[in-house]
């Protein structure tokens, strides 16, 4: 346990230092995630003109929460892994007595810590400009929201890592992630809260992994009611296990195909 903690501490420390080398890139990347602010403006205006079941300020808080959730659950492992397979960079990692996945996890977590101050500053500016949107979630709800964000990050990572395994077969594994991302955009609550969906679609969507990646953590963070949390947890767990099993099968068969190109 002590050794594992030391490994985690050192890996995180070094990947954090590595991420801090790319400050400008990091901030630009975080800025590129301002889509929720645009959607916030559109939905709040629409809600102001036509009753939509949610007051405009709820839309504002929801999309601000979506921004935070997106920033905290950003995953790019499919691109990193594909690059490493195609260029043979996976080889040195395979020769270490540590599963390569932990290096990718560490780089994501390290990056998250370097992003937090920037996201906090951006939210501070937003509340200064629009103080009406200010809210403080109850401690219990906030804890649940943080847990939901953590689960969302793990789910996003596990799913994308499973797709990343396809890099052993194709040089463009990220194409499947692009296709998956289209579903994610529409079904996760990124573009519109699930309340705006037709009831049947909303019901069906709750059995997919998508709402638990954005909608549920964002609603919790915004202090708004969330439907059937326990069912949501079980659905997420089931999908998580499916993708984990898929990843394991693809990893084992993929390694037999790995040609360590370029290395």
């Amino acid at each position, binding site marked *: 346990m002590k*050794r594992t903690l*030391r*490994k985690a*501490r*050192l*890996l995180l*420390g*070094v990947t954090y*230092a*590595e991420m801090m*080398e*790319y400050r400008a890139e990091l901030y630009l990347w975080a800025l590129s995630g301002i889509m929720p602010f645009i959607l916030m403006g559109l939905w709040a205006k629409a809600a102001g003109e036509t009753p939509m079941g949610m007051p405009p300020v709820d839309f504002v808080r929801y999309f601000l929460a979506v921004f935070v959730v997106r920033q905290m659950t950003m995953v790019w492992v499919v691109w990193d892994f594909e690059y490493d397979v195609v260029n*043979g*960079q996976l*080889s*040195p990692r*395979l*020769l*270490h*007595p*540590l599963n390569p996945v932990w290096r990718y996890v560490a780089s994501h977590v390290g990056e998250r810590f370097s992003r937090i101050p920037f996201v906090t500053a951006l939210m501070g500016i937003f509340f200064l400009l629009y103080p009406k949107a200010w809210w403080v979630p109850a401690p219990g709800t906030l804890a649940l929201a943080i847990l939901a964000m953590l689960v969302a990050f793990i789910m996003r990572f596990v799913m994308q890592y499973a797709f990343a395994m396809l890099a052993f077969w194709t040089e463009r594994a990220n194409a499947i992630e692009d296709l998956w991302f289209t579903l994610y955009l529409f079904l996760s609550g990124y573009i519109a809260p699930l309340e705006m969906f037709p009831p049947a679609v909303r019901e069906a969507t709750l059995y997919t992994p998508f709402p638990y990646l954005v909608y549920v953590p964002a609603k919790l963070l915004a202090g708004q009611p969330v439907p059937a949390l326990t069912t949501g947890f079980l659905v997420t767990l089931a999908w998580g296990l499916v993708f984990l099993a898929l990843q394991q099968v693809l990893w084992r068969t993929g*390694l*037999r195909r*790995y*040609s*360590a190109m*370029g*290395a």
Partner: protein
Amino acid sequence: MALIETHNLSKQYRTADKAPTLAGTIRHFLRRRYRTVEAVKDVSFSIERGEMVGFLGPNGAGKTTCLKMLTGLICPTSGTASVAGHTPFRREHPFLRQITLVMGQKQQLIWDLPPADSFRINAAVYELSDDVLKTRVGELAEMLSLSTQLSQPVRKLSLGERMKAELLAALLHRPDVLFLDEPTLGLDVNAQAAVREFLRDYNRRFGATVLLTSHYMADITALCQRILLIHKGQVIYDGALDRIVQRFAPYREVKIELANVEGQADFTRYGEVLAQDGRVVTLMIQRRNLTETVATLMRELELADLTITDPPVEQIIGRIFTKGNAA
């Protein structure tokens, strides 16, 4: 029992061919044609603990593929390999702790951070304590003449410094078996010599087993008593470096210096002319005809000097690979 052992180790892989025209591109998209390449064919050899063995062969001969199989990076198509009592492809942790692979054209150091940060990661991965890390970095840095460079970002280091830092990172866990693929590639003469000296020193101090590939014959002659020659995926020679001359060079080099430049003869009737520079002519003469040819040369030509030498090992190996058959 040998530390490294292979029996009929083979590796085949599929590759798609594409013609460089538009029609070729479309055909490649619609109906890709694959062919099977036999990268390594029935390779068998064994290496004892503490040996330093040179793995020689032209580009594409299968050297790197062999190293990848021996380190467990790729799965053999057939045959078996055993390194330190382990099957490499299983990549069990006790096996990985005993080996290292250094590739001259690849790096494991983090590009934007000082090498010291990469060493800390390796120390964590190999579960080395802070004290052990400090001692080993100090010891290896001294052997490699590295010090201030360890706190500069890797991207700011020269190629030679970077290679030394790569070696340090790769040897931090003190492996018993070193697989080195072109470790001096692109280095200047001084840096090459420093890396060679370090490897010899490491082998002597820790009794490590080394399998080394290099295009620089100087690396092999300086470090290895034994060589494995591989050509088109097959081992064509496995033995002492100095015996290769006897086995593969049934000829000797005869260098003659003529007393004057006038009246030069047609030297091809004595043997193959390797070089001719003014009064100095280098001939390659079959061993079995040597005495007779030298007597003829002395009788027919007015010579100022005559020397007989074995051809350089590089030349012999070059000829073997050009002819493509050493049997």
